[in-house]
């Protein structure tokens, strides 16, 4: 993720440690993937209670853009910053492959670089990516157009409800997603479909078009 951000915007991102009580002033905060605390208890559960998350919650309130990818998405749901939960994949197996995503809402900085319903490629690598929310919450998410990405063309790899691969919070400044857009940002990756997400979130799209 650090390499991807550095390549996209030319600036090396600042790092925050889980015990930090403040966050550096920044335009975008990313909680990357991985297996924080060994996925003990539940994926993201311990990380969601880390000291630094108080600051994350605080800046989220202020409207700072926050992206959680994979374990970062799990952490954001566990922290209550996004609705629902990520459960064990319906097929039980760890999945590591490429899927298709359709853009369900592009009226948001994170997804503005994509066309509505555009289908992009994106890799996934997770064991607990099965998005679950109770029927009422799911309805609210749909009514509020909080779904950012859906698994497309029958590629739902984990049994996620409504094929949900990524969701926004109600304000739209927090995005959580299981797929890894940072792993498809340069030709050497075999594609650049993930790149526009970061360019959008970092307001680099207009600069490029101008």
């Amino acid at each position, binding site marked *: 993720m650090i390499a991807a951000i550095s390549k996209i915007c030319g600036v090396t991102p600042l790092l925050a440690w889980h015990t930090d009580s403040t966050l550096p002033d920044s335009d975008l905060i990313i909680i990357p993937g991985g297996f924080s605390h060994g996925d003990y*208890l539940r994926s993201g559960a311990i990380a969601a*209670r880390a000291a630094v998350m108080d600051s994350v919650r605080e800046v989220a309130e202020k409207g700072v853009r926050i992206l959680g990818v994979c374990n970062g998405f799990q952490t954001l*749901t*566990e922290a209550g910053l996004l609705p629902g*939960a990520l*459960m*064990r994949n*319906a097929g*039980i197996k760890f999945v590591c492959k490429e899927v298709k995503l359709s853009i369900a809402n592009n009226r948001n900085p994170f997804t503005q670089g994509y066309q509505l319903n555009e289908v992009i490629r994106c890799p996934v690598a997770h064991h607990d990516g099965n998005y679950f929310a109770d029927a009422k919450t799911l309805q609210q998410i749909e009514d509020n157009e909080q779904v950012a990405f859906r698994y497309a063309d029958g590629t739902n790899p984990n*049994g996620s409800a409504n094929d949900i691969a990524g969701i926004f919070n109600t304000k739209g400044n927090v995005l959580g997603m299981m797929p890894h857009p940072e792993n498809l940002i340069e030709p050497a990756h075999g594609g650049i479909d993930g790149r526009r997400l970061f360019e959008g979130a970092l307001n680099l799209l207009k600069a490029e078009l101008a």
Partner: protein
Amino acid sequence: MSNKTFNAQVRVTLKNGVLDPQGKAIEGALGSLGFEGVNQVRQGKTFDVQLEASSKKAAEDQLANMCEKLLANTVIEDYAVSIST
């Protein structure tokens, strides 16, 4: 008032209706071992917690709080607390 030591067991289970693929896999394995008549298996977790509290009620309250804040994810899980001693 001095604190007493309590031994508690916290049981965390998936809510009804929440898919449990691990329970399903175990259910299948029991079937293939020849156990007949197993209608359903749901996998959960138990936590044995020893804690100091001023009373049994205080211990129960504290444990419920632990469940709400960490031990259970109440979006998908229910919890039950019992204190043995």
